[in-house]
């Protein structure tokens, strides 16, 4: 099996702290098909990371159920790869060691995977850096190593939490193209969290637009753009149409405002 379905049925999350309850996510219903590229876009603090962690089994749902590959999620799902916004590499391991730790922790034979790890690292432009430590790399290189770590065991499910959020625009664009190529080749199920409307629309089959606090899915859009979308898709009317629709939605919800607000009086009051 190369990809898995995901189902959330009335799944919500409420955090309790010091007797106060905060509703992070309203009950959510989603069906993600096997091999689907599913993006979630929303402002910061809308609970989209919580949603991802619920799918991964790292956070338990307060109500409802989460099902991955037909099994109810009650503990961390292991048949997946995760990429976070920060690379979270292990400082004490080299780039190659950081990739191979994925296999060591799973009790797999690292030697058997080493050639594949080197090929993947080369594919993301890290050839020659296999024996470097994370502190010797730029932020973009670290994140690419983290992506390779999430792929090395060829998981059927890829969960990405703003994986390109901390990168510069050029690196970001390149990694987006790489990710699309990878997805087209392997057809894994991907859940991709982002705050970039463009990125979501360029990558996903479907985009869930979330509203802030408590987070819920405001709209589910099907993106009907030909693949590979590459760099050219930005010019398509269908692309601009969807982006405009999402932007309008954020405007209505107050997530965005049409005019800038920062033109306030500065300097000491006399």
């Amino acid at each position, binding site marked *: 099996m190369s990809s898995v379905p995901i189902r959330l049925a009335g799944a919500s999350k409420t955090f309790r702290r010091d007797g106060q309850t905060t509703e992070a996510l309203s009950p959510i219903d989603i069906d993600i098909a096997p091999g689907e590229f599913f993006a979630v876009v929303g402002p910061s603090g809308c609970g989209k990371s919580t949603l991802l*962690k619920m799918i*991964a089994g*790292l956070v338990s749902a307060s109500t409802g159920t989460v099902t991955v590959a037909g099994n109810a999620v009650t503990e*961390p*799902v*292991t048949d*997946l790869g*995760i990429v*976070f916004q*920060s690379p*979270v590499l*292990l*400082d*004490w*391991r080299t780039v190659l060691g950081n990739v191979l*730790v*994925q296999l*060591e*922790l*799973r*009790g797999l034979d690292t030697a058997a995977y080493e050639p594949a790890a080197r090929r993947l690292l080369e594919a993301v432009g890290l050839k020659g850096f296999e024996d470097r*430590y994370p*502190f*010797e790399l730029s932020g973009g290189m670290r994140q690419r190593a983290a992506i390779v770590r999430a792929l090395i065991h060829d998981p059927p499910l890829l969960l990405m939490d703003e994986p390109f959020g901390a990168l510069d625009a050029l690196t970001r664009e390149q990694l987006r193209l790489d990710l699309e190529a990878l997805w087209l080749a392997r057809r894994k199920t991907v859940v991709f969290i982002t705050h970039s409307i463009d990125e979501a629309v360029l990558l996903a089959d479907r985009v869930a637009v979330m509203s802030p606090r408590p987070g819920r899915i405001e709209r589910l859009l099907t993106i009907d753009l030909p693949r590979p979308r590459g760099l050219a898709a930005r010019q398509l009317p269908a692309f601009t149409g969807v982006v405009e629709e999402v932007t309008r939605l954020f405007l209505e919800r107050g997530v965005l405002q049409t005019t800038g607000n920062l033109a306030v009086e500065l300097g000491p009051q006399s």
Partner: protein
Amino acid sequence: MGRLRTIAQPLGLAFAVLLLWEAAVRLGGVPDYLLPAPTAILADLAKRWPRILSNAWVTGLEIVGGFAVAVVVSLPLAVGIAFSAWMARSIYPLIVTLQVVPKIAIAPIFVIWFGIGWISKLTLVFLLCFFPMLVNAVAGFRGINPEIMDFARSTGANLWRLFWRIRLPSALPSIFTGLRIGAVNAVTGAVVAEFVASDRGLGYLLLEYNGNLLASAVFATVFVLSAIGLIIYYTVEWVERLALPWHVAQRRSETTGEQT
């Protein structure tokens, strides 16, 4: 070149200070019983070397012994406190509270309990090493990036693998900070314990020389004591370099601002 300079510069400065000291004592006519010249201290050290050396062994063993016991006790305890909510709630607050007791003030009690032999010395050295080692190790185990743990849990690794491959290595830099503080404290602990009651060791020697107003012998003993402290400290650093080459290199590139 860079490496040579990091050694040569402080050494050169130390030599200059010694030279200034020598000159000030000779030209200023400072009496020998107040501040002996470096050359006079050196001569005295050579003269008393056998006696100082045999007592240095005693103090050195107290330091190493107390330090080792502290390592063996504090690290497993830190693991327990970091991973058991029960221990973190019951034992740890107690230990942290007890830390405010001035250990040196209760040193005389150890003499009453354990006599003037090894055990009272080891106890004080142990206590002075134990707290910084424990507190730093606990902080190291607790301070792990939660997202690293999220990643590790998603691999389904068991607790044993998580500990050896993730939790322990991530705590090591902090553990070594505790060990370095402990190494410095251990020397103080041994000397103070000998001050309180002893019939041998460099602390005992210091009291004897001081009582007889042998300033240059006192300085010679302090010199040997500092040498022991340096050896212990740099041994810990050397082990750290072997165990955590990445961390030492990272620290260096952060302090000098150069990328390796």
